[in-house]
């Protein structure tokens, strides 16, 4: 407002407004009429003043008003959605589209490999008291050489008693998920006993082994997070990584230099892209003993990298629990790492504890979080109580006999491995002495399988980019057998060898994961057999003899 002393032209209007505001009853009709008739004049005076004082102000506001009017009334007729929408189809056109569309069959025709796998399923009639199998179509007893019951705890008589007692009291099924009255005291006892044994604050029990790690990973890693996974990991880990929707990068199997290179590359990228690493949860995922290779993860080196680059570690000890460590606590004990320093540790109950289900151990926070976020825990019926009772008893048996059992297992492992090295045409894939043994078709006569080597020796070239191409005339191996078929046909040889072994009284299996090319790693298809404490000298001699016979029959 200007400060000149001459009466401002708007003064009457202001006076009027003040009078109205004070509720003055002496407003006359004449005053109202006077204001109304002079309103346009007052407005033009005001506008002119405004324009004189600050024309840019008027310009901006006028443009804004025009823009708003355009938005409201003009733009409406140009709807961006409508312009790219598909044209409406007439009913006749829709019918024609439906008639002419033919869906793919629900399942594609089964491939030769898949058919071979489906047909290779054996049917076990019963398990005899001495642990051998009565297999349909095979007259004699078959040695079970592929079970993960490494310590043969399933044959302990106290297990049967615990099971009978539990069945009598609880029946079979739990009839509900853990949230809805499916939590039975047996679950709580099992979780308590395992946590106490492992030295962690708490543990959580899942009703299925594979679902444990496949639920734990997505419980902590979400979209936008980062997972660095060993390329030779087993199927449940890959499933978990996929379900988490995180970015997944694989590093070369057990290759700590490659992992360091990858970690460094990501750290460099962080700096270059000015990315805040504290905003993204990052994990390294490894297995204690790799199911697809049979070797041990160098956890001590992984933990060093964890400290240096600040990545959390998820460790699946399904095959190393009850196998490694002075008291069977697994890989962490083997490397003297305090139990809760590894962020998430899982293992299954269907290996050494010869029951069904899985466990995740850790701090209160890690475990409690999964009770609401672990998909396999929340949305699945809980474990049958008798299975928990069996696992509880199995843990007791393991703890009381562990040193004896571990000694016997190690003896059997060393003995069998040294004998298996003599099987013609086949070679041990891993250098580590674990009860999971993979045999591949021998294709490189120069590869050695020294049991003192700490890194695994695989029969394919280390570099990922150059693949060794097959040559029909492979060099003769140490036992004088020449492999004449192409590597692409190895799977067929292995399927035949495995079924021949079963027919001759030893149940070994092919590793379906690598046979069906599901692994990210360049792993060869293999035959897998396991070592248990129940093998006698005769059993192991028979295993080697049968494998030799079958290998000689098919590998020419």
């Amino acid at each position, binding site marked *: 407002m200007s400060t000149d002393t001459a009466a401002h032209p708007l003064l009457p209007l202001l006076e009027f407004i003040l009078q109205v505001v004070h509720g003055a009853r002496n407003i006359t009709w004449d005053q109202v009429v006077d204001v109304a008739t002079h309103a346009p004049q007052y407005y033009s005076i005001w506008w002119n003043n405004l324009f004189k004082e600050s024309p840019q102000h008027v310009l901006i506001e006028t443009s804004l008003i025009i823009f708003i009017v355009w938005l409201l009334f003009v733009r409406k007729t140009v709807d961006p959605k409508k312009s790219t929408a598909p044209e409406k189809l007439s009913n006749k056109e829709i019918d024609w589209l439906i008639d002419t569309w033919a869906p793919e069959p629900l399942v594609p025709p*089964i491939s030769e490999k898949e058919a071979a796998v489906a047909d290779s399923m054996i049917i076990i009639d019963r398990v005899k008291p001495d642990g051998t199998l009565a297999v349909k179509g095979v007259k004699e007893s078959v040695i079970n050489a592929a079970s993960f019951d490494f310590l043969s705890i399933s044959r302990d008589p106290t297990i049967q008693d615990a099971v009978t007692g539990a069945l009598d009291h609880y029946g*079979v099924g739990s009839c509900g998920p853990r949230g809805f009255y499916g939590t039975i005291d047996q679950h709580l006892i099992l979780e308590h006993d395992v946590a106490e044994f492992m030295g962690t604050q708490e543990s959580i029990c899942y009703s299925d082994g594979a679902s444990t790690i496949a639920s734990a990973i997505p419980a902590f890693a979400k979209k936008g997070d980062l997972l660095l996974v060993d390329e030779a990991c087993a199927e449940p880990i890959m499933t978990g990584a996929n379900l988490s929707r995180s970015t997944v990068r694989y590093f070369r199997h057990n290759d700590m230099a490659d992992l360091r290179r990858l970690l460094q590359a990501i750290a460099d990228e962080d700096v270059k892209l000015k990315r805040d690493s504290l905003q993204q949860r990052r994990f390294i995922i490894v297995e204690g003993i790799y199911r697809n290779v049979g070797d041990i993860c160098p956890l001590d080196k992984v933990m060093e990298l964890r400290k240096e680059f600040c990545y959390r570690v998820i460790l699946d000890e399904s095959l190393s629990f009850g196998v490694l460590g002075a008291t069977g606590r697994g890989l962490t004990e083997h490397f003297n790492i305090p139990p809760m320093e590894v962020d998430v540790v899982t293992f299954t109950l269907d290996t050494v504890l010869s029951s069904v289900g899985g466990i995740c151990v850790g701090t209160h926070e890690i475990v409690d979080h999964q009770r609401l976020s672990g998909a396999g825990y929340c949305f699945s019926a809980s474990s049958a109580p008798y299975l928990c009772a069996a696992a509880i008893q199995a843990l007791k048996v393991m703890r009381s006999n562990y040193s004896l059992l571990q000694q016997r297992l190690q003896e059997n492992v060393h003995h069998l491995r040294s004998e298996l090295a003599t099987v013609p045409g086949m070679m041990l894939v891993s250098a580590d002495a674990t009860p999971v043994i993979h045999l591949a078709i021998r294709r490189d006569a120069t590869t050695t399988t020294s049991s003192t080597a700490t890194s695994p020796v695989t029969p394919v070239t280390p570099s990922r980019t150059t693949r060794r191409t097959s040559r029909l005339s492979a060099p003769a191996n140490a036992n004088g057998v020449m492999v004449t078929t192409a590597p692409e046909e190895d799977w067929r040889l292995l399927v035949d060898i495995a079924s021949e072994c079963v027919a001759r009284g030893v149940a070994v299996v092919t590793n379906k994961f690598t046979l069906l090319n599901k692994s990210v790693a360049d792993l060869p298809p293999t035959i897998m057999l396991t070592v248990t404490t129940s093998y006698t000298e005769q059993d192991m001699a028979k295993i080697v003899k049968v494998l030799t016979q079958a290998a000689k029959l098919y590998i020419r």
Partner: protein
Amino acid sequence: MGENKHFHEEPEMTWGVAFFVYISYAAVIMAGHIRDFFANITGFSRYKDKTHKPGFASLFHSWESFYTRRLFHRIQDCWGRPISSSPGALIHVLTRNVAENGYTLKAIPEATECINLGSYNYLGFGDDWKTSCKAEVMKELGNFPVSMCSSRMDVGNLRLHEELEELVANFLNKEAALVYGMGYDTNTATIPALMGSESLIAIVRGQPKHHRPWKKILVMVEGIYSMEGDICRLPEIVRVCKKYKCYIYVDEAHSIGALGKTGRGVCEHTGVDTKDIDILMGTFTKSFSGMGGYIAASAEVIRFLKANASGVLYHNAMAPTICQQVITAFKVIMGLDGTGVGAAKLNALRENSNFFRSEMKRIGLHVVGDDDSPIVPVMIYAPGKICAFSRECLARGLAVVVVGFPAVSILTARSRFCVSAGHTREQIVQAVKIIEEVAERINLRYEHIFLG
């Protein structure tokens, strides 16, 4: 056609009730934020982030776990209640106290006997297991270890699995069947094996980016929807799928052994020929007192799945005793055990369900779901009433299940009752009496009230 007699109008929430529900949630959320605020400025909190390690990204973002900390933990005693008995019509619910850390619960060896309306014990095998199943199950106990510690494709496949598959295929009149060790795994292992990246699960206008037609379309429905108690309108869906050449997958987790005159599930109940359904899936947890699941389809599909489903190739095979339990349960249901126990159970389930449902309606509660469904959900709506209902029922000796967000939408919290063939008429009448008392106390008769 007889199918429409089962379907009905859903009760509607009045706007008065909706208003109070919104206010309740707003109050709880605001209280939660205030508590978080004070926790931040004073540093006193039972939820101090103990997972925090300097240099590492925070494992739980505080906004992600707000719901858990400030809503769920306040009423977490309504869920996860441990029991020390078999999951029959009467259960012993253990008491729990708050643990040292201040936010988890710990059970103590003190139990209350309650009528059980929460377990999936539809055919009552949890009650009479000793007379109906025990003998056969124990017979096989000596023939196998507790677990084969191997997958079915390795050395885990038993004659029991084969026998069970034949029974399932027979029962459902399909060519073949495949069983898995875990029900949840049955779906997660099968669906990815069938559907690749250019397949569609449920229908629309071609693939969004380039409008090329989908390679195949699979429509997935459930027999009974476990949160709504609704039965699937299968004949209409089959008609639509036939017209648009889609494959149809029916998940009968809750309806197998519970619906239909002979317990053959939603197909029998709605009069659909199982030949028209491409894939039938179900679980053994509910009506059979077992564990695990099955897929029933054509021989070609089953053979393909045998070579491609991770549940068969890599995961632990179904435990022998559980296999035998399910086989025995099937035989009872089908009458192959020579008794009328199976037929009696199916009848009892249907009668109990319908009686219970009509009683709930009589009291004036908002009941959803269809007749003949053993799942009877009753609406609660307000968050404060969720825990009130659960706790008051427990105090009176009735074990119920309440469901809130995120299992159901935020406005539709409910109590979900699971009726069983094992319930006696007296037990149901007693349960109804307790519910009526509690409903009166916490104002649940939504049929008669306008404001929440």
